[in-house]
């Protein structure tokens, strides 16, 4: 489609020099996966090392490219690499190519950087697992697919990566598939993702029908003059895809169950990278959404609902990983909300995505470290007082905690505060509703993250008798430290200077300064106040209230447990009930209306199928009769069409 390329204003340079190596970013981890998965037991000895080396090599390439990109003018930072022509059917052809620009560069660095750290961590975490090599093979497969997703230059290739990360995610959630529940969790994730993928494939079909192209260039060029209806349809379908992949309302349910996978998987796939693919999709499709305000509004609504929903769920979970998963859902809700705001929010969505990648991965790995020391327990009610025995984990987790609740000057403060500010920009009811949601969400986040942190690391030791917590080995704590430094400092580097906003401007488009409906200092003050309230409340509930000494008899333990339950009941009646009613309604809706329609269709097809089947009696003479009737029909039809 050279004509469309020519019509583009921002043209991508052909990838030369270090950018010509872009394909290696994908090829290296893919090679790693191939060697590890096809090599079988022979690669057991060095599998984990090879598996770690591949994303690291990709990371090095990414950094070199990043530096090279910094050395160029902002408008000349886009590179395309043509890989090959996939389908040349007549005048239409589908090319497979890579697009390296500022946006994909952010993701490349995040995926390979955090990915490498998590690989290193996994060497220690999975040390005693007999299938460690297979685990690394899947991880490498995931890295390759995720890089393909963010480097693709067309929706079709993006779709390939999209399916690839889904496959890797499914394989990793079910990694311990000998536990039936885990297999069920894998199945749930599989199904929820299919719904989203369906949306993406429909979106691609509409694009093809509308613009005759599925490449980013072609679609964005076509989006300029397209009707708003078409753009809205595409936007909503893309949103459906994003909801499936990023666990957004109403397709959020799989993420909690996905925690069945090994913890590094939760950190890499279900916190830092894959689940943010939906945000990437929406930011990447900015030209489509900019032309479809209705679709944008739906994105914002979905984001707002999810951020509140996730926060509420987070307050009630006792399983440390599930609480973190709920928090992930909620934080991605923030990103979605920002992405739905349009050019004003795109950069902040990515900003929050990056900082979140660091602090959430760090906290998941920290949780993994705790579990490692606690015989793989996840019940926070059996934690408590771990800070004294696992110092490094405690400090690194603490930094992540400060970052996520948004305490200045840690990362989360800079990114989340920007989103809240952006949400308050606008006219009419919107800034109040969406900004309010973002603001309240920040308070609830502070509450449940503090609860999680305190229940795990502080207060009474409520350990079961057989655990003897100990700090994890160096190979696990060093990645924790690196991530903690990122959680603490990344925001400070990118936030006050607006470096990231300027960096992304050529991709997401510039926007003028608009003042929020409340002045910025007021908003920041309000946010910090709500955060302080959340922290204080959690502190009063989980530390201030005395937990009696562990008595010789079990009865005191029981009493302590009862008190916990009591607190939960309060939480529930205040916060969870409405959520539960809503959930129940949604389940009802899902069962009755959605399933009803699906089942009706299935029954219709099944009935037809059965009727047809009855013709297949096994009697050769009835077959001959059907053939004879068919022949008569054919002759009759031929004679008829002649008339």
């Amino acid at each position: 489609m050279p004509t469309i390329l020519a019509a583009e204003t921002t043209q991508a340079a052909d990838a030369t020099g270090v950018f010509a190596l872009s394909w290696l970013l994908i090829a290296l981890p893919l090679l790693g996966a191939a060697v590890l998965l096809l090599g079988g037991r022979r690669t057991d000895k060095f599998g984990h090392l090879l598996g770690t080396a591949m994303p690291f090599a990709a990371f090095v390439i990414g950094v070199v490219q990043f530096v090279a990109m910094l050395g160029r003018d902002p408008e000349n930072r886009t590179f395309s690499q043509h890989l090959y022509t996939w389908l040349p059917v007549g005048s239409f052809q589908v090319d497979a190519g890579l697009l390296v620009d500022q946006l994909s560069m952010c993701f490349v660095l995040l995926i390979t950087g955090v990915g490498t750290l998590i690989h290193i961590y996994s060497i220690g975490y999975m040390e005693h697992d007999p299938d460690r090599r297979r685990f690394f093979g899947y991880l490498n497969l995931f890295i390759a697919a995720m890089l393909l997703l963010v480097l693709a230059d067309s929706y079709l290739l993006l779709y390939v990566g999209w399916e690839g990360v889904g496959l890797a995610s499914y394989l990793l959630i079910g990694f311990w598939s000998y536990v039936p529940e885990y297999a069920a969790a894998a199945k749930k994730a599989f199904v929820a993702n299919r719904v989203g993928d369906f949306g993406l494939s429909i979106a691609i079909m509409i694009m093809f029908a509308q613009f005759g192209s599925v490449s980013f260039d072609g679609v964005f060029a076509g989006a300029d003059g397209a009707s708003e209806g078409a753009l809205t349809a595409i936007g909503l379908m893309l949103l459906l895809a994003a909801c499936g992949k990023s666990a957004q309302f109403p397709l959020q349910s799989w993420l909690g169950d996905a925690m069945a996978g090994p913890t590094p998987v939760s950190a890499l796939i279900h916190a830092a990278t894959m689940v943010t693919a939906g945000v990437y999709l929406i930011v990447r499709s900015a030209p489509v959404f900019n032309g479809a305000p209705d679709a944008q509004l739906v994105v914002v609504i979905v984001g707002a609902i999810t951020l509140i929903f996730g926060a509420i769920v987070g307050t009630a979970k006792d399983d440390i990983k599930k609480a973190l998963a709920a928090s992930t859902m909620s934080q991605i809700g923030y990103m979605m909300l920002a992405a739905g705001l349009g050019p004003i929010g795109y950069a902040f969505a990515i900003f929050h995505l990056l900082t979140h990648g660091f602090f959430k991965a760090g906290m998941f790995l920290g949780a993994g470290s705790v579990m490692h020391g606690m015989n793989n327990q996840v019940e926070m009610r059996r934690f408590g007082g771990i800070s004294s025995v696992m110092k490094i984990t405690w400090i690194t987790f603490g930094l992540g905690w400060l970052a996520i609740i948004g305490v200045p000057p840690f990362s989360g403060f800079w990114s989340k505060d920007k989103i809240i500010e952006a949400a308050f920009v606008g006219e009419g009811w919107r800034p109040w509703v969406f900004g309010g949601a973002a603001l309240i969400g920040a308070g609830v986040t502070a509450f449940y993250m503090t609860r999680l942190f305190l229940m795990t690391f502080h207060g009474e030791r409520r350990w079961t008798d057989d655990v003897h917590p100990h700090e994890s080995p160096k190979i696990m704590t060093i990645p924790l430290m690196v991530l903690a430094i990122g959680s603490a400092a990344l925001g400070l580097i990118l936030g006050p200077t607006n470096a990231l906003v300027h960096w992304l401007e050529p991709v997401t488009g510039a926007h003028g300064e608009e003042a929020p409906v409340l002045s910025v200092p007021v908003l920041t003050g309000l946010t910090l106040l709500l955060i302080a309230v959340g922290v204080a409340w959690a502190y009063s509930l989980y530390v201030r209230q005395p937990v009696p000494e562990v008595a010789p008899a079990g009865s005191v333990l029981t009493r302590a447990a009862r008190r916990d339950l009591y607190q939960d009941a309060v939480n529930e009646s205040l916060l969870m009930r409405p959520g539960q009613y809503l959930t129940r309604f949604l389940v009802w809706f899902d069962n009755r209306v959605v399933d009803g329609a699906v089942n009706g269709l299935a029954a219709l097809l099944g009935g037809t199928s059965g009727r047809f089947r009855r013709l297949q009696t096994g009697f050769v003479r009835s077959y001959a009769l059907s053939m004879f009737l068919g022949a008569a029909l054919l002759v009759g039809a031929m004679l008829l069409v002649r008339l």
Partner: protein
Amino acid sequence: MSALSVSATFAAAEFQTPSIEYSKLMPMLIVFGVALVGVLIEAFMGRTGRHQVQLILSIAGLVAAFVSVTMLAGDNQIAAVGAVAVDGPALFLQGTILLLAIPGVLTMAERSLDRGGVFTSAGSSTPGSEHERVLTATGVTQTEVFPLTMFAVGGMLLFPAANDLLTMFVALEVLSLPLYLLCGLARRRRLLSQEASLKYFLLGAFSSAFFLYGIALLYGYSGTVRLSGIAEAVSSNSGSDTLLMTGTALLAVGLLFKVGAAPFHSWTPDVYQGAPTPITGFMAACTKVAAFGALLRVLYVGLGGLAWQWEPVMWGVAILTMVVGSVVALTQTDVKRMLAYSSIAHAGFILTGLVATDTVDPDTGAVLGVSSVLFYLLAYGFITIGAFAVVTLVRDAGGEATHLSQWAGLARRSPLVAAVFTLFLAAFAGIPLTSGFTGKFAVFSAAIAGDAAPLVVIGVVMSAVAAFFYFRVVVLMFFNAPAPDGPAVAVPSPLTTVAITLSVAVTVLLGVWPTQVLDLADRASQFVR
């Protein structure tokens, strides 16, 4: 056609030796030659080592024939006094059939899965008889399957190349008769196998009677059996329309029977289920390729001037075929039957490409209806051969375990086999990056170019329905718990392994890198007339 020219000399009373371009017919001559040598080996060679010799000879013959096809590539002429066309579609399909026959023969030769092989020790022995017991104990097996297969392959090579209806009829019978026999030679479940054989034979003979009647009527209409002569008669509109229309319809019955299109599909599930699985795979892939080639040639070369008349009828057949295949497959409980219905559905998809008729791509000059069908047949053939080869691997004490419930949890027993089968199912369903997607894309875009958009809509909907039952099997294999007494996955000899690997490679290659083959199909899309 030598016989025609001989009779011509009879009338003209002056003798002239018909000129036959043997070099142009080399692929067929090689295959028929190998088949004849195979018969001689069967008659005269000692029992020991006969199996190996037959296998090597067959494979060598197929490879040699394929090489000679590639050497003929680019030819565009009529050979053997007008009886055989050596043109793009014929050569492409001959190459496809030969390539497909290689994994087909390899799976037939597999002997490590079942003691003594897939086929009965002697076709004439009764199951459970003393004769059979002795044969099994001594491990003696007749190997006539190889020459039979080669005869069938020879017929298949001639079928899409036949340029007159007499040659086409002969080719039809030459490819069918050995297949009728091969269907009845299963070692296990012999009664089902023989039942399949008898059903296939009776219905096949029934359909060839229709085919023949159609030929007779067309002959009566045009005074010739040569396709070009019929085309001339059609364009000059001489003769009775009733003869022409009825003849066309009856001719189509015979060909649609062979491709397994509704409403002439009823034999397919029963025969596919009963026949020995390697034969089913061979039959499902190669027969379909050959029969579609013949259908294309008849409709495009002989009856191209009649396209206005047969197109709506073919629309109807395509729709009915897609619907019947996809919908009935939904409720199948047997893997082989499910694949049979899937093959019916695929016949429908191919028919959608075929009705694009003479729509020519303005850029490449390719005849879209032909090139897309050529590509689809190649892609579909390898998926089918591979899928049926995988079916032979899942076994319990009673032989192959074909009931779907027995496939539950297969991924736990053998992730590799489950993954390979998933690949084939995904290709059947038309998932991108598999050959199935490229094929569907080709036929559907050809149909759109040929103004058959409604057909494409139905095709897409039916693909979605079909995807459902394919993925039901995937879900079954990966998410369900295996039954405690479920089947095991047998480790095959290199023969089957090579066949499956080849199929996987082609399926992936044609999905990821289809450019070259699509170009080849484009260039091969011109019929010589």
